[in-house]
């Protein structure tokens, strides 16, 4: 048994012929296993969707309850047999509900990581390394220049700026699903108790997180008529809003953006960001290397991102490694659309 017996790359993405299912297909298919609810991984229109309950809930919230013909929830660690392939979902630490998908057939184990990170995140269970023969990984930040700083340290930089400019509203651009809620939780952990204002695009998803039992303290919908009250406050918004006329209505705002890309100065400058925070929901270079080592795999396949350096490194370690060049996966940390992505917001 080899990886290619279990999974093939097709125009729709990874496909398992034995179990007749796709994983995170980029177009509508009969049966889809979904790692997490980001729009480039979780599209609408599939016949049947298998995912964690949280991911299914988020998909329904974003795409409508009728996003798929039928859905089935699988808890972390629970096993299901599809065509003789044992399937289970395991925490990926990326966003609420995110999972790695483990496939086992005749003692051969293959893991599809989906998107993942290794840093602690108060809003979702931590990544669990799984021993496997083949590890199919993402590589959004697959270059050694990407080293995410401690996210709490970054949040403290935001609070320091708030202290330095108590008159100025601080607009924090953070991806609406996952990053925004993680920033909220970290701000509260850091002891910031003041009300935090939410841009409309962040609200719905944040209440979903609250319904799962997370407490974000006092959060308020931003009332345009009461914009004056945002002096010295943090306003969470989707990153694209930072460049919108919306942002210019604030009085002398500080523009901040939480993303792994903020590590590169040109990205931050391009966006006009004054306070770049390196907070990412993807593994950094060290995170990728550690994870590959911990899985004990013999083969690494890279789905999307900066595959070349990672493949070079893995081969240098005596592993078999290939880029899969899967198309259609974007990267929500660069996401630009304010409106809820409808399924093709991945460019």
């Amino acid at each position, binding site marked *: 048994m080899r990886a290619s017996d279990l999974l093939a790359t097709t125009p729709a993405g990874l496909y398992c012929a034995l179990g007749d299912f796709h994983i995170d297909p980029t177009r509508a298919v009969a049966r889809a296993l979904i790692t997490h609810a980001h729009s480039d991984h979780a599209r609408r229109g599939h016949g049947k969707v298998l995912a964690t309950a949280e991911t299914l809930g988020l998909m329904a919230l974003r795409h409508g309850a009728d996003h798929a013909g039928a859905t089935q929830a699988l808890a972390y660690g629970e096993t299901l047999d599809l065509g003789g392939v044992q399937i289970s979902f395991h925490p990926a630490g990326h966003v609420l509900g995110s999972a790695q998908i483990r496939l086992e057939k005749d003692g051969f184990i293959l893991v599809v990581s989906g998107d993942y990170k290794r840093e602690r995140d108060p809003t979702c269970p931590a990544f669990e390394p799984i021993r496997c023969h083949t590890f199919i990984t993402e590589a959004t930040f697959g270059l*050694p220049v990407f080293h995410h700083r401690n996210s709490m340290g970054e949040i403290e930089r935001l609070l320091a700026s708030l202290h330095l400019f108590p008159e100025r509203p601080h607009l924090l651009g953070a991806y609406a699903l996952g990053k925004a809620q993680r920033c909220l939780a970290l701000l509260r952990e850091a002891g910031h108790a003041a009300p935090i204002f939410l841009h409309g695009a962040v609200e719905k998803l944040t209440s979903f997180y609250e319904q799962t039992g997370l407490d974000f303290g006092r959060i308020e919908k931003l009332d345009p008529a009461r914009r004056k009250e945002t002096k010295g406050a943090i306003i969470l918004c989707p990153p694209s809003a930072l460049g919108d006329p919306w942002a210019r209505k604030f009085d002398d705002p500080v523009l901040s953006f939480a993303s792994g890309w903020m590590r590169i100065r040109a990205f931050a400058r391009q966006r006009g960001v004054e*306070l770049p925070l390196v907070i990412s929901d993807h593994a950094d270079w060290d995170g990728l290397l550690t994870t590959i080592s911990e899985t004990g795999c013999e083969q690494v396949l890279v789905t999307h991102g900066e595959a070349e*350096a990672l493949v070079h490194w893995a081969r240098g370690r005596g592993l078999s490694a290939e880029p899969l060049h899967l198309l259609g996966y974007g990267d929500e940390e660069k996401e630009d659309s304010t409106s809820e992505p409808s399924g093709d917001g991945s460019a």
Partner: protein
Amino acid sequence: MKDFTLLLDRLSYEHGRNAKLRILCDFFAHVPDPERGYALAALTGALQFKQAKPGLLRALIATRVDPVLFDLSYDFVGDLSETIALLWPAPPSDTRPGSNHPPLLLSEVIHGLSGGKLDLPGRIAAWLDALDETGRWALLKLVTGALRIGVSARLAKTALADYGGRQVDEIETVWHGLAPPYLDLFAWLEGREGRPDAKDPAPFHPAMLAHAIEGQDFTVLKPEDFRAEWKWDGIRIQVVIGQDDHGARVTRLYTRTGEEIAHTFPDLCAALDLIPCDRFALDGELLILRAGRVQPFSVLQQRLNRKVVSAKLLIDFPAHIRAYDLLSEAGEDLRPLPFQERRTRLETFVSKAQSDRLDLSPEIPFTTFEDLAAARANPASHGAGEDAEAIEGVMLKQEQSIYVPGRPKGLWYKWKRDPFTIDAVLMYAQRGHGKRSSLYSDYTFGVWRGDPQAREGEAQLVPVGKAYFGFTDEELRQLDHYVRAHTVNRYGPVRVIDHGRDEEGAVKGLVLEIAFEGLNRSSRHKSGLAMRFPRISRIRWDKPAAEADRIEALEGLLRGKVG
């Protein structure tokens, strides 16, 4: 390094000029000497050390990082210093400076850099080990001499002026005499000590500049308030003579932007050193005189173009100064005196100097502006004689005007000769035809809409015409060379010549003096006007693009129909 690092980091993300000034002021207020002074030196480009070449840095990083991973990373990040700063592996924590080592200071780095080239790579590596990633970035920007954080020397000086409640020209005045880490400068700005006596015995005096006169000005200005003289077609030069601490004579020649060029005019300096006055500063025009006759600008240009000053060059192109203002004499600052008093002092000075390389720019007697127009139209018969060819027009100077740095309103005017000339910026070039088909000889030029000096502004070049003659074959070769070296884009046969801004916001580009016979309104042209018979009368290699003319100058011509 910590404060300096934070400063560079914050400035690099800041777009607004005012916010940058605030950050700089805050830095000067909170960072102690000498660190703030060295940071100021770094920002103003005043540090003298052998810069680390990219090759050295690449070799350094190759000792720490897999070259394939480095190449992929550099390719992605695009900036060498930033890539290395991000990739440089942190040394094991027990060797990191912490409780045992005081943090690395900017002054240590600067001393280390100026201490000869001995083991520069080793030193840089040790510093990189001692710093965090932002610190490494700041260090590498510093050692490569390319800060590129959008702060010009002028902006840093403006921040100093803000900090000390001074005018920026006051800073410029003392600046040439100061050296890092500027302890005396900060002491003065903070009111702890008096103004630093320019340690430079022969400092630059920021130049006073003239406005182009426009049609409506003649209805407002009173001729009796003004004195007139010829506008010579040379380059503006400031002679400053002083004495150093040991009593030795110091001779400086400054261009109007304060660039020191004495070393290229040893003949002139030798002559100036014979003048029996230890300390003085005068303002005048640098010209080439042969047998007492002023040569056209193209002759001066030939001397300016030579890199090597040979004995033959000195004989063939004898340099000369035609003086028109005296700024200081024997330690007395004359700039606060009215122009007419300075003129009297200048006349006495020049006659006492008895130098064959220095003479007086003669005045033009006139009663009405009509008189002056007649002189301007025919300088030869109005006193200029055979020098008439080297006259670009006339200057009008208000009798009571003190010498004000910059371009103050209402005091000095230039009234150029017909044909009209404007200074424009080269925007596009195309190949010529026939004999010239191998050379870029068709030039499109433009002038400014908006104020290019305002770094925040939306100043834009508007094309106003095309010229394909007026230059010598030698100049054509130079222009062709310039075009090839400064092409930033191509549209079919058209090359776009660099006229954007550099990282500090300064405008790049080549200034061409365009002569033309007249101007008409035109709806076919974007600029709304069309030039008659435009040609290149001069290539202004010396003139910053931001000082090219503005569209208002042409619109003024249209309204006033001067001449």
